[in-house]
């Protein structure tokens, strides 16, 4: 048996199989469930590290399985795939630890962790998809696996949020399916190929190809929360904090953004997309989303909703990077895929901690949380500053490359968008930081649970945000070192453009 | 008053269907169908173990159809039983009718036996014989015999399912030890057909009579133990 041909599948199964087993566990089997969760997460991390090394050395990892004649399931580890896989694997490990701490005493944990694992498997599947069919398959499985997580709490709010979420994502999935089938009927099986495959397509199907691009974009835009398809995201905030963290930083929105990147670079090819004006359309859409999301975030008092709209805005940087013709902006967009994940997951972990320990759900209740929960607040501060783009946090690097790339491509209006959005970012994050550190704490927190131990909160809830904050900081500080997201993004950009 | 569906649409549709059917049928009989299967069938009758061509077809050439048909009969009866118990039945008849029935029933049974036997070389066979047996049961039921002269439920169940069982088992045995499913060895064909037909006659007769009762037979038959 050829190990190289099985590694991608093994990475997928390393979380899929524990997930299936967890469903079967009795509710009380706490220890076994934790063992399964952690084994899966660590095993996956090990396999991914192995794979990164291999891809660096030029190994070709590809699993190909024929589902039916003409329909192949392809899992392939190219540089772009590895970037996303590494992000999701790392963050899954952290989020699993956090979720174990967070849901310690809540009901239906077997169901929760089962779907949690399947959700990550689907994300990894999306990352490793080697053709459009495989992408569609995992994109839909992701919808199926996240629905129970959003609905998990079982409150009327949760039911409503889940319903909205499902309506949006099913609609998006249907559009993606239509686009994919249409495209495949025109040009045959669509393998993701560096530089795209449509550059050589005959002139007479060009109009159809452009139409298909917009159908695909609409399908992917739902998960990527492109305005006006973002409506589900704030609604899905009813989910437990680890789910929000996963949805926003790793799985759902990233899947959409990643899909847009794939379609632009590896299906249409950036040159074809540029020549036919598709990039401009994407850029405008992304810019509108960036500004709109930031403006909406400004008006939210609920902390999680403010973070949600911030996600709407920040994820579109990735699409923005893809929409600017030129390798530098590509680096900016790609690297933001990772950086946004690290920063946003930190923020959500912290929001969960505030809610859990102090009952604080609103920005207006955050006065003085800095002194009450210094470590959590420190992590939150790092994340928030990163989002604004303050050096040396990772977000600065992304924005720097995006701006540089825009200048390089002569798209000065993009720089204006970047500046405006950074100002807006500052406008909705800085007041929070001000409240947290410089306002006096209230006499009484909304709903305080004092943690018995030495730390401000249980270790399983404290360490994850601290770790991700440190990672976000390091990704910015040591951006030029080998094996950083930035270096990897440069590698991808080189390969997409350097033919 | 004219109801459009009933008075216009359906009749017009029927006229169209009838025209199409008639035209097709005309073309079919005036066409090149020729002998159809008649010649083939008649030519093989001597090999079938019986000399009545219809019985040859029913119990040899197309015996499998007949097996499934017995299953249809059984399914119908089981369905009837699942729907409820039989009606209490008629009052016992006065002496004239009773006497007549008592005279007729043995005659019908005798005729059934004859029909069964004669089916091998002349019109007749298991279905005709079964029908006669069934009518004997109907007659008994009309004359007030509570279970149409049928035996107790346990035995009745055996009786109604017997035809399918004997038929299917014969077929399977011939498959295991002989030349194939329901492939009679020529020397035994006559007797195997008779065996199957006898079982089928009993089942058909019992089924028809039991179906006439319209439901599960009463737990303990009070009158008319035998038919």
């Amino acid at each position: 048996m050829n190990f190289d041909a099985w590694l991608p599948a093994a990475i997928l199964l390393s979380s899929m199989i524990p997930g299936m087993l967890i469903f079967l566990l009795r509710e009380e089997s706490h220890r076994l469930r934790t063992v399964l969760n952690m084994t899966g997460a660590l095993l996956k991390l090990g396999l991914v590290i192995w794979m990164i090394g291999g891809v660096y050395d030029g190994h070709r990892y590809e699993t190909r399985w024929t589902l039916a004649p003409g329909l192949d399931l392809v899992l392939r580890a190219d540089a772009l795939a590895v970037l996303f896989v590494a992000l999701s694997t790392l963050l899954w490990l952290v989020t699993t630890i956090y979720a174990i701490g967070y849901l310690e005493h809540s009901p239906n944990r077997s169901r929760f962790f089962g779907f949690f694992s399947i959700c990550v498997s689907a994300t990894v599947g999306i990352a490793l998809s080697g053709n459009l069919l495989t992408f569609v398959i995992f994109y839909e499985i992701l919808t199926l696996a996240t629905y129970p997580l959003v609905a998990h709490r079982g409150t009327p709010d949760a039911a409503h949020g889940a319903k909205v979420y499902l309506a949006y994502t099913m609609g998006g999935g249907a559009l993606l399916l239509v686009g994919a089938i249409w495209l495949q009927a025109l040009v045959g099986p669509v393998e993701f190929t560096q530089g795209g495959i449509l550059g050589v397509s005959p002139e007479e199907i060009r109009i159809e190809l452009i139409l298909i691009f917009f159908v695909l974009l609409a399908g992917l835009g739902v998960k990527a929360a492109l305005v006006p398809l973002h409506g589900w995201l704030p609604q899905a905030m009813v989910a437990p904090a680890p789910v929000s963290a996963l949805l926003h930083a790793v799985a759902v929105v990233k899947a959409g953004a990643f899909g847009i990147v794939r379609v632009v670079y590896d299906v249409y090819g950036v040159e074809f997309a540029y020549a036919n004006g598709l990039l401009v359309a994407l850029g405008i859409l992304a810019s509108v989303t960036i500004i709109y999301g930031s403006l909406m975030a400004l008006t939210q008092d609920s902390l999680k909703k403010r973070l949600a709209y911030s996600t709407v805005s920040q994820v579109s940087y990735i699409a923005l990077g893809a929409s600017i013709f030129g390798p530098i902006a590509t680096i900016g967009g790609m690297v933001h895929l990772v950086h946004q994940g690290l920063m946003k997951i930190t923020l959500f972990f912290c929001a969960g901690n505030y809610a859990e320990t102090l009952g604080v759900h609103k920005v207006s209740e955050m006065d003085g949380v800095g002194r009450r929960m210094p470590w959590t607040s420190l992590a939150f501060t790092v994340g928030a500053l990163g989002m604004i783009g303050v050096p040396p946090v990772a977000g600065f690097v992304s924005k720097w490359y995006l701006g540089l790339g825009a200048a390089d491509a002569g798209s000065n209006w993009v720089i204006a968008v970047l500046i405006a959005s950074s100002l807006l970012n500052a406008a909705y994050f800085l007041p929070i930081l001000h409240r947290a550190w410089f306002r006096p704490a209230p006499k009484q927190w909304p709903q305080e649970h004092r943690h018995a131990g030495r730390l401000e909160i249980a270790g399983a809830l404290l360490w994850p945000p601290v770790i991700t904050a440190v990672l976000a900081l390091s990704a910015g500080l040591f951006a030029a070192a080998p094996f950083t997201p930035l270096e990897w993004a440069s590698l991808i950009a080189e390969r997409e453009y350097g033919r | 008053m004219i109801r459009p569906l009933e008075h216009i649409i359906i009749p017009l549709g029927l006229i169209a269907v009838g025209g199409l059917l008639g035209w097709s049928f005309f073309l079919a009989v005036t066409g090149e169908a020729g002998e159809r299967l008649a010649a083939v069938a008649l030519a093989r009758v001597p090999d079938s173990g019986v000399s009545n061509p219809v019985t040859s077809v029913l119990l040899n050439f197309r015996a499998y159809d007949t097996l499934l048909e017995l299953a249809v009969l059984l399914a119908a009866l089981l369905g009837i039983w699942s729907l409820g118990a039989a009606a209490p039945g008629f009052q016992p008849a006065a002496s004239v009718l009773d006497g007549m029935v008592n005279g007729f029933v043995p005659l019908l049974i005798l005729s059934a036996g004859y029909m069964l036997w004669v089916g091998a070389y002349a019109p007749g066979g298991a279905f005709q014989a079964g029908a006669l047996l069934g009518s004997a049961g109907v007659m008994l039921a009309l004359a007030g015999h509570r279970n149409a002269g049928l035996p107790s439920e346990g035995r009745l169940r055996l009786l109604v399912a017997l035809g399918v069982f004997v038929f299917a088992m014969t077929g399977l045995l011939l498959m295991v030890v002989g030349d194939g499913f329901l492939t009679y060895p020529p020397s035994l064909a006559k007797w195997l057909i008779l065996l199957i037909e006898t079982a089928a006659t009993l089942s058909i007769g019992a089924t028809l009579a039991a179906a006439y009762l319209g439901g599960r037979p009463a737990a303990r038959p009070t009158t008319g133990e035998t038919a």
Partner: protein
Amino acid sequence: MMIDALPLSVTLPLIGAFAVTVSPGHARGPGLLAALLTAASALSVTAAVWSDGVLRADLGGWGVPLGIALEADGLSAAFLAMANVVALAISVYAGGYFKQESARHFWPLWLLLWSALNGLFLATDLFNLYVTLELLGLSAAALGALTGTREAVAANLRYLLVGLLGSMSYLLGVALVYAAYGVLDIGLVAEAIEPGPIAWTAMALMIGGLILKAALFPMHFWLPPAHANAPAPVSAALSALVVKAAFYLALRLWLDVFAPVLNEAAANLLGTLGAAAVVWGSWRALRAERLKLLAAYSTVAQMGYLFIAFPLLVATPPGLARDNLLAAVVLLALTHGLAKAGLFLAAGMVQKTAGHDRIDDLGGAAQALPAATFAIGLAGVALIGLPPSGTFLAKWMMLEQAMILGLWWWLVVMMIGTLLAAAYIFRVLSRAFNREPTPYRFVNDARTELPALLLGLIATFGLGIAAQPLWVLLEQGAFG
């Protein structure tokens, strides 16, 4: 000595029916044994077709045209395998579901129905098919009325009558065919048939009768009440197998008998009715208040998808593309069969636990039965046509072919159906998320929950990830 699995698959359940008829008090043991043996012999037929090619048995040794033959090609073998897996699961489930009194009625009728199914899939004789259709229809109607409620009896009487009308139409077609061509064997009729009013009328009569039995819109009216009011294992059999058998036969006749006389108008008519069924059935399923009624309307919609295949098949020239399309249609039918049976079986458990099947009040019951809820979820994924189910692959292939042919409107219809299906399935699944914690045991009653779960798993993961074997099977005589 030789054992021929073809007649065995039909006669074993008959002998089983005899055994359970004569010993009604102890029906379950012999019933399950007969179920196991029947399924084993039918699956061995499929295995033999897989490895050795088309199987044929001349019953009585006469051969056609005089005798009747049974034949298993790839198409029959595929349907046979699906039907027998589903029937076995239903049998195991029924062993736990029915109590004494209904069990004694269920088992013999159920084995007779099974015999009719196997007989129908293996038959090659047009008149013999009529007999199997009647055996199927009678036993199905009787089984459907087993709950004994007035609604069930009335609905199944209607089903019986409609079925009889359908068979009568079919038989009229057979009489016409025999009058014109003098043979009844499918292969011989196919050789003799030529375009003209006879072939046309016969096709209209036979396929018309069958779409009545397959509940194609607008002849679907009898299905929802009949299927929704039957006992759960019977509903599963009716929805997953009985209507599929009618579709199988229509497809078989279409492909093998009437191939020379097909035209686009007839195919488009069937496709249009199918499209209407998809939209109307899905819509009614969405509005249904009861879980089993929802499942029944969903069957109406699912049958619609299958008939959309006809215009696509006619428009695709023979060759690889058409073979793939045919296989996709079969895959769709098989996945639906498995999924719908799983759905009904699981719904039966939920109904038993809750004491009712009103969707809006299902909360606790659904959460207390994780295995059953998972079965509903898995079956739902397959019914919607989401990955990784067999339906997803099948729909992908059908839609891709539709787009290649430029027939984009079938894509629109199927996407509408898909979205409506998602809406009605998740309407049920959303009930499984409740506030109150429930003691979590995945399986509560293995005998009833596992069959449902297994069917759901095969429909979703089995046929969705490994559909390739179906092509190998259909290579055996089913491709043009």
